[in-house]
C-alpha cells in the first residue's frame, strides 16, 4: 500500500480547547504529528486524551482551535468526510454482517464496485492474518481476532490517519502484548499515521514513536519514550511515567533548566540535582529520582544516610524500601545477578546518585 506522501498523513492541532461547563476537558493543546508517525496520547482518565482523539475523528467539535489533517482545516467537517480510520475500544463490528462484509463496508460507502470490494477486503483480512475467517460472523471470533478485523476495516480504504481509542484494553495481558507488537509492525508496513489513546504507559512507551502526556486537559510533554522517561519536563510526567522517588525541599537561588542546583531537603541535608524546568528562588521544590538510579553503598561511603526498612525480593531485582535521614521514604532497586551487595532489613546504608539523574521541579502548590 504505502500511498502516504509527505503531508497527506500529517495531523496538526492548533490551540484546541474543549470545555464542559466551567471545566476544561482540553486546555489549549497544540501538537503536530508527521506523516507515518506513531503518536500515543497518554494520560489518566479525565486527562482529555479521548476528547482530543474524538475532535480529530469529528465526533466532538472544539470550542476553540483548529484540527488540520494533511494541511487541510477539518475542524468542522463531519466524521464521514474526514477519510480517517478508527478502531474503537469495543470492537464495534457490525453484528449483522459477516467479517468480510464488515471490512468491505467502508469501500461500499465509497462507491467501490462489488468485485473490487471483495478483493480488497480479502487482502486487508490477509494483512491482519485472518485469511480464512471472512465468512464468519464477528461473534464467532475471539476478542483478539475481532480487534484485528476492526483494524482491517479501518485500513482497507487506505485512510491517511488511523485513530485508535484504547483498542487493546479489552484483551488479556498476553494477547495485549502480542497485539502491541503486531500493530506496530503493521503500522511500519503500511506507513500510516497512527494516533493511539491509552492510559497504559508501558503500552505507550512500547508502541509509539512519540508520546504526548496529558493531565487535566493540558499537554505536559511531547517526546520520544526515552526522553519522557529519562528527562521528564514536569513533575507530573516524572511521577506518571515509571516509578519515581520524590524528595521535597527548597531552593535558595533561582535556576534555569539544565542548571545544577543544591536543594535543601525538608528533613535536613542537601541534595544535588539538575533543574528540569525554570525554578524560582526560595520556591518549594520536588526532586525526582528513579529507584534504579539510586546506588546503595555501605556506611562510610559518600551520600545520604538511610536505613533499610524492608527488602522485597521479586526475582529479577530486589526492591529496598528505605528511610532517609530526613525522614524521606525512598525506594531503590538492586538488579539480581550483578553481584551487588543486598543489605538486610534494618541495615544502615548510604545512598548516592549522579546529579543528572535527580531532576528538580517546582512543587505543585
Amino acid at each position, binding site marked *: 500500500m504505502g500511498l502516504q506522501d509527505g503531508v497527506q498523513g500529517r495531523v496538526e492541532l492548533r490551540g484546541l480547547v474543549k470545555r464542559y461547563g466551567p471545566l476544561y476537558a482540553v486546555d489549549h493543546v497544540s501538537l503536530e504529528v508527521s506523516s507515518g508517525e506513531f503518536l500515543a496520547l497518554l494520560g489518566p482518565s479525565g486527562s482529555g486524551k479521548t476528547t482530543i482523539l474524538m475532535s480529530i475523528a469529528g465526533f466532538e467539535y472544539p470550542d476553540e482551535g483548529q484540527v488540520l489533517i494533511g494541511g487541510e482545516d477539518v475542524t468542522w467537517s*463531519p466524521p*464521514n468526510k474526514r477519510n480517517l480510520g478508527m478502531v474503537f475500544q*469495543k470492537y464495534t463490528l457490525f*453484528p449483522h454482517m459477516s467479517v468480510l462484509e464488515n471490512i468491505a463496508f467502508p469501500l461500499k460507502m465509497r462507491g467501490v464496485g462489488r468485485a473490487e470490494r471483495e478483493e480488497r477486503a480479502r487482502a486487508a483480512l490477509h494483512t491482519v492474518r485472518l485469511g480464512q475467517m471472512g465468512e464468519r460472523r464477528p461473534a464467532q471470533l475471539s476478542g483478539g481476532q475481532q480487534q484485528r478485523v476492526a483494524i482491517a*476495516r479501518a485500513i482497507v480504504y487506505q485512510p491517511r490517519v488511523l485513530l485508535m481509542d484504547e483498542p487493546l484494553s479489552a484483551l488479556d495481558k498476553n494477547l495485549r502484548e502480542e497485539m502491541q507488537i503486531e500493530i506496530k509492525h503493521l503500522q511500519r508496513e503500511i506507513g500510516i499515521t497512527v494516533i493511539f489513546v491509552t492510559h497504559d504507559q508501558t503500552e505507550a512507551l512500547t508502541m509509539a514513536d512519540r508520546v504526548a502526556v496529558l493531565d487535566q486537559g493540558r499537554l505536559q510533554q511531547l517526546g520520544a519514550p526515552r526522553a519522557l522517561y529519562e528527562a521528564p519536563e514536569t513533575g507530573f510526567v516524572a511521577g506518571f511515567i515509571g516509578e519515581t522517588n520524590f524528595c521535597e525541599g527548597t531552593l535558595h537561588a533561582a535556576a534555569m533548566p539544565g542548571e545544577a542546583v543544591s536543594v535543601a531537603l525538608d528533613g535536613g541535608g542537601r541534595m544535588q540535582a539538575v533543574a528540569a524546568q525554570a525554578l524560582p528562588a526560595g520556591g518549594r521544590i520536588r526532586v525526582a529520582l528513579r529507584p534504579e538510579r539510586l546506588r546503595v553503598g555501605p556506611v562510610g561511603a559518600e551520600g545520604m544516610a538511610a536505613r533499610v526498612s524492608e527488602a522485597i525480593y521479586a526475582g529479577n531485582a530486589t526492591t529496598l524500601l528505605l528511610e532517609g535521614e530526613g525522614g524521606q521514604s525512598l525506594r531503590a532497586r538492586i538488579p539480581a545477578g550483578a553481584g551487588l551487595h543486598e543489605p538486610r532489613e534494618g541495615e544502615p546504608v548510604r545512598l548516592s546518585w549522579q546529579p543528572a539523574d535527580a531532576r528538580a521541579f517546582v512543587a505543585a502548590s
Partner: protein
Amino acid sequence: MSAARGNRAGRMAVNAAAYAVTVFLLLPTLIIAPMSVGPERLLSFPPKGFSMRWYAEYFQDAEWVRATLFSAEAGVISAVCATVIGTMLSLALVRGRLPGKGLVELLVIGPVIVPHIALAVAMFLVFEQLRLTGTLLGFAMAHTVLALPFVVFTVLAALYRFDAELERAALSCGAGGFRVFRYVTLPLIAPGLVSAALFAFVISFDEAVVSFFISDLDRKTLPRKMFEDIDYNISPTLAAVATMLTLLTIAALLLGYALKRGMERRARAAARQGVEP
C-alpha cells in the same frame, strides 16, 4: 424446623394462589373454543356434539366477512403508518435534541391515559364534520394514534438495546447520516420494528370503542359488528369468531416472541464483542 415447614406451606399456598389466578385469567376465553363447536343454538358446556356449523355461518355471512376484511385493511394501514411515524419519533427522542421533549413524551402516552370513550366521542364529533366517519382514512388515522404509544415504547426499547457506538463506527467508515441508519441502525432494530407493527395491527384489529362511534351502517369494523351482535343476541357465530380471534392472538404472540428471541440473541452477540465489565 417448624419455621421451615411453615415457610414451605406458605410458599405452596402462594403457588396455588398464583396458578388459580392463571386459570381465572385463561378460562373464560378458552372455554369459548369447545362451546363454539357445539351444534345447538343455546351455547353449553360441555358441548352436546361436534359441528362446524357456526364457523360456516360466519364465512357465508357477507356482513361478517366484509367487516373482517375492512378491519384487516385498517389494521395493516395503521400498523404501517404507526410503525413509520413511531420509529421516526423514537429516533428523535433517543438520538435527537428535541425542543420540548417533556411535552412530546406526555403526548406519546396521551392516547393511553385519555380514556378511549373520551377520544371516541371527540373523534366522532370532528370526523362527522370532516366526513371521515365510516371511511378507511378515518379508521387508519384513529387507529394509528391509538397504536402509536405502544409502537414508540417498543422501538425505544429496541433503540436502547442497540449500541450507539456502532453508528459512530459506521460514520468513521464514511457513511453519512442516512446511510448509517439504512445499513446499520435499521437492520439491527428491524425485529423491534416488526414486533411494533404486529402490536399496532392487533390493537387496530381489536379496537372496539372508537370503532363503535366512527363506523357507519355499511362500513364497520369486525369489533363493531361483534358489538352489535352481542348487544342483540348472543349467537353461536360469535363464539366461532371469538375462537378464531383468540387463535389469531396466539399466533401473533408466538411471532412476537420469536422476534424478541432473535433480537436478544443479536444483542448478546453484540455484547460478546464488547468490553468485559
